[in-house]
């Protein structure tokens, strides 16, 4: 029976260090679990079992030779949007079928230098555009808690595999909530670092002013451990901040004494499913019992966040996806008479509907005559959202809020209604717009047994604060995780 796949990253590191298991055994148990379950779950889009075992054996050999490294032999899965040298990087799109990454993303290179093993590629919404993973051109992924429901998106594969013990931890990316929302829907931890905290080099760009790579893990301590390895400045990414990471391990305290936690009133208005609100409120009381002082704050520009987010992210995406034109990589439409026809037909055949919608929306809001009314205005709304947070963080150290207005949707429920899907991002997009860090931590279940997430939002570059809040709450609450 597989067993080592149920470990956390922290437990795996200890077991490997103490000789309780080898990396090969650990990977073996994960592969057994994947073989048993992933046919139904659909979390992995690519898995080379031989390659994973080869990496694991190499790590074990290095350990026997005396090498020590923070993640030596620890297997991690990677969302199919992040380049891992020699592995496919398809972004769950037809347009990148056959593409093999020629280099490691910086975040990957750092994890590799720490000894990590790269297990396989996680399913996602195509080019990270979506909130259900139904926009993948490869397959759908099911929620491990209810197979008739979505795992969330766009990092749905990453969240599902962690929640189902098919991975110890996985990387995702978060542009408008794509790490936090699937973490909430699947009942695992999801961290969006501050903008500029983790290098975006090697992350296929969706929206360059909003994207961040983030870990999906079983515990807050695991998320801290992975961020500590991945984060920091990078000469290959001029948007990666030249700031040292705070001591994240020291931040993991058992209580919240001395902390002020703000409750943004606009995040608790009507429209939230009662069971979600109840679970979040119960968690807030738990934080108070742990010693935090609660205070109400206001983020008045919240109701404009979704509009501002979709205008800005689609505008940036329309520029970032212009490179997929059949010239240098990926698919190319055959028999085009000239380059223009090649671009138009390649992109028509290669992109799915949601990607096309967002490219068109983005081109529209940037086009002559509409640029001021939409794009510039959205950038001004963005400035007001940033100012709202700055004001709130003068009154408190971090904010507590729901991650999503509802628990996981049924498959197909929002597929034909893009606007309804977009509105579900109301609580997650503001942190991306402002550049803040934010964490989703499991905080309970609905009566139907669907996970609910608690969101902790912190000021930019204060991941230590949100990890502290998340860890103390998680340890006190003790919510059960799903086993294999």
């Amino acid at each position, binding site marked *: 029976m597989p067993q080592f796949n149920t470990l956390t990253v922290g437990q795996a590191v200890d077991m490997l260090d103490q000789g309780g298991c080898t990396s090969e055994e650990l990977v073996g148990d994960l592969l057994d679990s994947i073989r048993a379950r992933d046919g139904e779950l659909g979390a992995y889009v690519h898995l080379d079992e031989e390659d994973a075992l080869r990496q694991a054996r190499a790590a074990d050999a290095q350990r026997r030779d005396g090498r020590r490294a923070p993640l030596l032999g620890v297997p991690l899965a990677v969302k199919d949007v992040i380049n891992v040298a020699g592995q496919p990087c398809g972004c769950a799109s037809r347009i990148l079928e056959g*593409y*093999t990454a*020629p280099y490691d993303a910086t975040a990957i290179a750092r994890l590799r230098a720490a000894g990590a093993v790269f297990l396989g590629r996680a399913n996602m919404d195509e080019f990270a555009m979506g909130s259900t993973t139904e926009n993948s051109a490869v397959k759908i992924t099911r929620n491990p808690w209810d197979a008739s429901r979505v795992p969330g998106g766009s990092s749905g594969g990453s969240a599902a595999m962690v929640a189902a013990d098919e991975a110890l931890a996985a990387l995702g990316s978060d542009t408008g909530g794509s790490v936090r929302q699937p973490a909430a829907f699947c009942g695992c931890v999801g961290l969006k670092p501050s*903008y*500029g905290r983790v290098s975006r080099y090697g992350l296929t760009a969706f929206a360059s002013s909003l994207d961040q790579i983030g870990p999906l893990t079983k515990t807050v301590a695991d998320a801290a451990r992975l961020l500590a390895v991945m984060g920091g400045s990078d000469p290959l990414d*001029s*948007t990666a*901040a030249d700031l040292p990471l705070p001591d994240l391990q020291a931040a993991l305290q058992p209580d919240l004494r001395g902390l002020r936690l703000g409750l943004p009133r606009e995040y608790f208005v009507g429209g939230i499913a009662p069971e979600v609100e109840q679970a979040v409120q119960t968690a807030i009381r738990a934080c108070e019992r742990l010693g935090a002082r609660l205070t109400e704050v206001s983020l008045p520009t919240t109701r*404009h966040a979704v*509009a501002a987010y*979709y*205008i800005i992210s689609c505008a940036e995406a*329309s520029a970032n996806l*212009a490179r997929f*034109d*059949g*010239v*240098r990589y*990926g*698919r*190319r439409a055959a028999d*085009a008479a*000239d*380059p*223009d*026809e*090649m*671009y*138009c037909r390649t*992109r*028509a055949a290669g*992109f799915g*509907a949601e990607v*096309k*919608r967002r*490219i*068109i*929306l*983005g*081109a*529209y*809001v940037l*086009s002559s*005559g*509409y*640029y001021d*009314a*939409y794009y510039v205005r959205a*950038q*001004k*709304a*963005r*400035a*007001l959202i*940033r100012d709202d947070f700055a004001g709130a963080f003068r009154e408190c150290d971090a904010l507590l809020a729901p991650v999503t207005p509802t628990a996981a949707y049924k498959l197909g429920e929002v597929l034909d209604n*893009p*606007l309804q899907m977009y509105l579900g991002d109301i609580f997650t997009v503001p942190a991306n717009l*402002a*550049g803040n860090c934010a964490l989703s931590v499991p905080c309970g279940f609905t009566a139907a047994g669907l996970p609910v997430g608690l969101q902790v939002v912190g000021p*930019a570059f204060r991941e230590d604060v949100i990890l502290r809040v998340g860890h103390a709450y998680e340890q006190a609450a003790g919510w059960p995780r799903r086993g294999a």
Partner: protein
Amino acid sequence: MQTDRSAPAGQDAIDVPYVARLARLALTPAETSLFQQQLGRVVGYMRELAELNVDQVEPMAQTMPRCNVLRLDEPRPGLPREKVLANAPRHDGEQFIVPKIV
């Protein structure tokens, strides 16, 4: 000078074929009419931003005020050519091959 061409409140008429052409996307008639309808609703929703008072607000393009991030002008190896061409749909070992431009 840019004019504000926002339509009155409600569904916006987004010229999908025109914008798709700008984005080099060849849409089918079915896609065009579906997107016209779906994006019309989305754009209609986005027009609520018009209610926001943004007088005196500077547009925010990035979350961190960084500019002119420089490094020393020292040549370093980049990706080797074979790796760059490895994913190319058509190449001759030195260049990407594309349909004739002129």
